[in-house]
């Protein structure tokens, strides 16, 4: 029984559930206190001891089935690092129950089966890997909450990072101060560090294919960047227009719904990135500085219109950086009317961004300012 519980704990950790050693000990103590050993009771007890989150329940069910329903699986030869670690764990505490071969087989599972790895990590490690576009309305609010939390966490981390840097003397003030002492610089003057507040310009594709995706990304940007800098949002289908004022940072989801009712971004109704970039170039190129970052949000499906890469090159020369977030998988970039392969070389970074963990990856690689 002890091995099964430890195996279960390892499987759960594998799947991303935070299971601590005291919790494993609790569950063993709980099992010892049980008056009867039937599988449903054991499952209930272990669940209440090891899993403290409703969202992880399905992960638990699968891990439990693996750890308890097959007490003697075939020993796996290809045990990797994972199985070695698990073996150490289990061997140390393993009681006398179960034959030696069964024990070895049990414990080799987490690392041994290559197929088991994606099964545990992909489907159920919370909401991180749920694709934005297929998010169920019920889960959506929760996912937005996760996005907000991730963004805030990152904003505070980034803040620490940018505080570093050496002091620089301010010669003008140094000189002026020294005059009072007859030209002897008694008092040193340092240049005041400007607070690092990057401006983020977001250019987003408002065509229908993007709607499911926008709330998440905008939520992220408004929680993340709005803490550290200024955000302006521009939307387009084929004509670019500033939509910053329409978006309420406190209720991004509703704002995005309202966007759809708005004219002014669409003339023909076919997505045209080239024209949008042209519009941005005409109206806003003067505002671009080294401290301005452009984030383009779109699937780059340009309906075979002209790409407008010249404008993109111009932006790159003026702005601090251009990043492109594409809700499509990298595999489909450049297929059909996707111009992503054309645009990617002009960006400092192009990311596929289908779910929260990919969004996280993007933010990790960012260095705003």
């Amino acid at each position: 029984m002890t091995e099964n519980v430890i195996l279960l704990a390892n499987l759960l950790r594998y799947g991303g559930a935070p299971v601590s050693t005291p919790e494993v000990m609790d569950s063993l103590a709980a099992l010892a206190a049980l008056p009867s050993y039937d599988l449903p009771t054991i499952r209930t007890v272990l669940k209440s001891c090891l899993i403290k989150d409703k969202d992880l329940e399905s992960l638990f069910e699968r891990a439990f089935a693996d750890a308890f329903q097959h007490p003697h699986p075939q020993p796996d030869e290809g045990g990797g690092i994972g199985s070695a670690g698990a073996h150490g764990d289990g061997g140390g505490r393993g009681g006398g129950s179960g034959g030696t071969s069964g024990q070895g087989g049990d414990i080799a599972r987490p690392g041994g089966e290559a197929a088991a790895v994606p099964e545990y990590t992909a489907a159920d490690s919370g909401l991180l890997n749920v694709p934005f576009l297929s998010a169920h309305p019920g889960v959506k609010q929760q996912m937005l909450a996760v996005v907000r939390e991730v963004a805030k966490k990152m904003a505070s981390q980034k803040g620490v990072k940018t505080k570093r840097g050496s002091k620089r003397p301010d010669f003008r003030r140094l000189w002026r101060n020294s005059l009072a002492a007859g030209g002897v610089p008694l008092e040193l003057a340092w240049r005041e560090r400007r607070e690092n507040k990057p401006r983020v310009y977001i250019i987003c594709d408002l065509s229908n294919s993007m709607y499911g995706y926008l709330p998440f990304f905008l939520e992220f940007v408004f929680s993340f960047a709005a803490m550290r800098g200024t955000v302006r949002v521009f939307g387009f289908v084929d004509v670019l227009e500033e939509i910053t004022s329409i978006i309420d940072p406190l209720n991004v989801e509703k704002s995005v719904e309202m966007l759809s009712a708005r004219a002014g971004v669409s003339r023909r109704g076919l997505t045209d990135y080239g024209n949008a970039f042209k519009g941005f170039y005409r109206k806003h190129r003067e505002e671009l500085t080294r401290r301005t970052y452009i984030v383009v949000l779109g699937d780059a499906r340009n309906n075979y219109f002209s790409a407008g890469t010249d404008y993109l090159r111009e932006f790159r020369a003026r702005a601090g950086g251009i990043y492109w977030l594409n809700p499509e998988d990298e595999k489909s970039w450049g297929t059909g009317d996707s111009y992503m392969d054309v645009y990617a070389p002009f960006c400092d970074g192009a990311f596929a961004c289908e779910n929260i963990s990919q969004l996280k990856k993007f933010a990790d690689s960012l260095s705003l300012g």
Partner: protein
Amino acid sequence: MMTEKTDTLSPEGLIESLGRHGYICDDNIATVLFMAEKLAKPLLIEGPAGVGKTELARAYSDFKDRRLIRLQCYEGLDETKAIYEWNYKKQLLYIQAEKENSNWQDIEGDIFTEQFLLARPLLDSITSPEPAVLLVDELDKVDQEFEAMLLELLGDWQITIPEIGTIRARHAPAVFLTSNRSRELSEALKRRCLYLYIDYPTAEREKEIVLKRFPGIEQELASRAVQFVQKTRSLDLRKAPSIAETLDWVAAMLLGGLNQVDRKAVELAGSTLLKHHHDIELLLEKSRTGRWFQDDRQ
């Protein structure tokens, strides 16, 4: 008490005893509650509003015949309201009374002692002479700092007061924490608790609850009403009806002399079962078009 000992020998015994105190629980709830009691661990209960999280703690304290100490959480709750507070007025009076015949060192030593301490729910629960039941309700409403203050209590059954020292629990209280999942609780807190998720009850359990509460009700009506509520919950509602609201609705039906779930009953549901205008409209519309009534069933 003899009965108490036999009652808690098994989860089944727990189901029965809680049943006698007006709480119908399923195997899952009973097993986890039983475990929490055995291991003397706090029990963290999550679930939608109105599925009987608080009620479970109440029934348990009833059954154990222990005092229920309840801490209702809200935003801005702080330690002076939750753990302890110095009885400032009493301290002042004491200082005035001792004015003539004492020096400051003595007074200072005197006024920071237990007799000047006002015990708030958390301190109360561990200093109580008999074992108590502590219910920390809607823990998700408070901020993370407050959660951190709970850790010492939940992990070690003790509270540290800087001026006095550490107060250990005479008897570890049975602790129930409830949360509506409006916010994720911290890992540190979860680690110290057993976890129980209570969902909306199954039709059988809900029917049992209705029968328990209204012993005179007809079986037929009870199951029809419960079926109706279960169907209502499957709609896309802002707020699904809770058990308490089911009971309200059934009570209203009985008062109105209705003995079947008909149009009148649905109208009543509009004011007892659902509390959002949008939800009520939806229900009325659905029940008008769908086959929702007993008399439409042929």
